[in-house]
């Protein structure tokens, strides 16, 4: 299983890969991945690679990711080359017409990519008092809603319970539910 997670520095991407890691470890599966710290993380494009299984290197090659999780539509589109044919593309969009570009639509259909766009900011505005820090858990909720590559609701929720700081646990579980509802309203 190979994930690529992209977004903008400061969006809380690292927490998402920690949750994915916890789930894999609980299943007894080996994990290796790479994250971005330092200058590169400061408000710029960031990318996390994450592999579950018998791998040695932390990096996902282009065309080999099973799932691409994008916290930002532009970063997501720029990173689509990582996704394999038939892969899953979860993308937080801030402009409803983000995926309307004709070339983009052709690419997504040619490569049989399962696309799941959602208006994360709008959902968080409506239900979480506009606190965008919960975007990372929202996207995890959407991923488990899609059952992306075997992510089960119970496992994700259990990992969230263990990894959330106590003061954010309730809100994180709510954001997770909201993410699930994106897929199964």
């Amino acid at each position, binding site marked *: 299983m190979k994930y690529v997670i992209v977004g903008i520095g400061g969006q809380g991407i690292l927490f998402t890969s920690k949750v994915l890691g*916890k789930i894999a470890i609980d299943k007894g599966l080996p994990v290796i991945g790479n994250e971005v710290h330092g200058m590169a993380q400061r408000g710029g494009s960031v990318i996390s690679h994450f592999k579950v299984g018998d791998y*040695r290197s932390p990096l996902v*090659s282009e065309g080999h990711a099973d799932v691409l999780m994008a916290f930002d539509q532009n970063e997501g589109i720029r990173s689509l080359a990582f996704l394999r044919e038939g892969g899953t593309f979860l993308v937080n969009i801030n402009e409803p017409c983000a995926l309307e570009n004709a070339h983009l639509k052709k690419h997504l259909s040619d490569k049989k990519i399962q696309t799941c766009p959602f208006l994360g900011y709008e959902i968080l505005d409506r239900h979480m008092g506009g606190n965008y820090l919960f975007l990372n858990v929202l996207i995890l909720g959407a991923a488990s809603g899609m059952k992306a590559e075997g992510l089960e609701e119970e496992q994700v929720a259990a990992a969230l319970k263990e990894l959330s700081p106590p003061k954010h646990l309730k809100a994180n579980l709510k954001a997770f539910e909201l993410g699930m509802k994106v897929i199964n309203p």
Partner: protein
Amino acid sequence: MGKKALLLGNEAIAQAVVAAGCQVATAYPGTPSSEVLPAIAACADRLGAPTVVEWGANEKVAFEAAIAASFAGARACAVMKQVGLNVAADPFMSGALFQLKGGMLLISADDPGPHSSQTEQDSRFFAMFAKVPCLDPSDPAEAAAMVKDAYTLSEKHGVIVMLRPTTRVSHSRQTVEVVEGFELGTPVKFEKDAERWSPLPATVRRAHPHHNTRITRIQKEFEVDWGRYNRERPAKGKAALGVVAGGVAFSILCDLLDEWGRDDVAVLKVGTPYPLPSALVEDFIARHEKALILEEIYPVIEMQLLNRAKADGRWNGVVPSAGELLPEVIERIVLSRLGETPSEPDVSELSAAVEELKLTPRKPQLCAGCPHRASFFAIRRAIPKAINPSDIGCYSLGVNQKAVDTALCMGGAVTVSSGFYMAHKATGQTHPIVAALGDSTFFHMGLPGLLSAVYNKHAFVLCVLDNSLTAMTGGQPHPGLGGKPRKNDKGTAVPIEAAARGCGVSFVEAVDAYSMGAGAEAVKRAWEHAKTHSTPAVLVFRHPCMLLRVPQEKIPVTVLEDKCIGCRYCIDYFACPGLVFDEEKRKTSLDIRFCVSCGICAAGVCPHGAIAAQKEGESA
């Protein structure tokens, strides 16, 4: 089997350092090495280990303290990034010749790419320069395993051992067993022996040949006893290609070969690039008709071969001489050596979309609400024609606001200002110079330059952007704060103003970085003082870093569309992620995804008054 956890490479290294009985651990933060020392402190706290864990004011300070602990018999460790080793080069080069007592581990983390560095230099080269053994891990778990072996090697031969992780080791997470115990350290008793601990020329004449013999012995050991790090992944049958690979390049190559299902490529993993286990490598190359060398970033393995013409590598341009060896780069090189063309997936539609949508990588930038943004705006506004040297850290991002002209190295803001002053003086000119550097950088290497500038009467303004932590590397404490890594350990805070006055600076003032008007006035005053008295003036811009999440007043702002004339002044000189330019409307608008309602932009950024604080009851 013990408990497993998903650890960052730097955390895996750190717990191995504690487990190995390290008694003194020092560091100066720098990406990608920064997390090692805090993780050593956390692990020592968890296990109750007696390790003394400290940040040095810079890497030279940190290294010297660690190696002296080894003189006294303690197991020691110094951690830094590759450019930090440049700062510590002096004690590293001379310490290399010593017959040390306690084990001495140097962790120097490299940054191929680079992702967060001003050079792409290779610390293995530095190890070769100093003739000290170097271990090059291929993943976090191996990096952790190497720590214990590094201490054994160091104590057996009395030599510094370098562990050289790269960004893809330091910042990778891997399932690693959690350390539950630690070895007792070595007895500490400094034995006086001036000849051993003071490298006078007569001593060095004996020490250098001894050092040479020692490194030759280590080379033999690497060839014979270090099979766990220097090992072959054989091909099935006759190999079409033999690849010598070190570090993460080995891991990437293995994954690629597995992915392709290929077994006609033999790989020799080299985990000890210096001294090179030449017998192994030369034999491997001789056994293969075609051979290739993959290592990051310089040709260190290559250059140690007696005849490198027998293998492809950097010397003949097969491997690029700059940049990271990413999977796609290695794929291209390996397949081309096999006489095959990589099957590039067709992404023409995607490329066309990216072009049409004008999507480019997002540049690093100061956080919304960052006090540095306000400081830079004030600095630039005060004296627009001033030369603005800056430094290494978040404030190098002042380039986005056109408020940074140079960034040479740590502490360079001060000495570069001196150089500009001297160059103008030589031609009878005085040009305003307003430099900026951070609080931690001020202590790191700003002080010697400042002292020198006072002594030599150099006129410039030095703005110290004090945000109460070392921000770029993730928020470490520094001498100005007095915090220390281990629980219940407190240091003494050295205020920036006191340090500046102690260097003889006659103008020292502090302003709240958020008060841009007062900041600009203070810059003008400081420059007048500097010019009149031919001396450096120090101005501290103070406000906590946004990463500290100190509660502060929320001042929601709004862009008044009728007043905005689309001049882009706020975009070009304030450069906040909360303000974006709408190319269609030709007006600035608020990006609520990033705005943190710090209110700075409403305090006089827009020359036309188009950015204003929202009145109560109004909505965005």
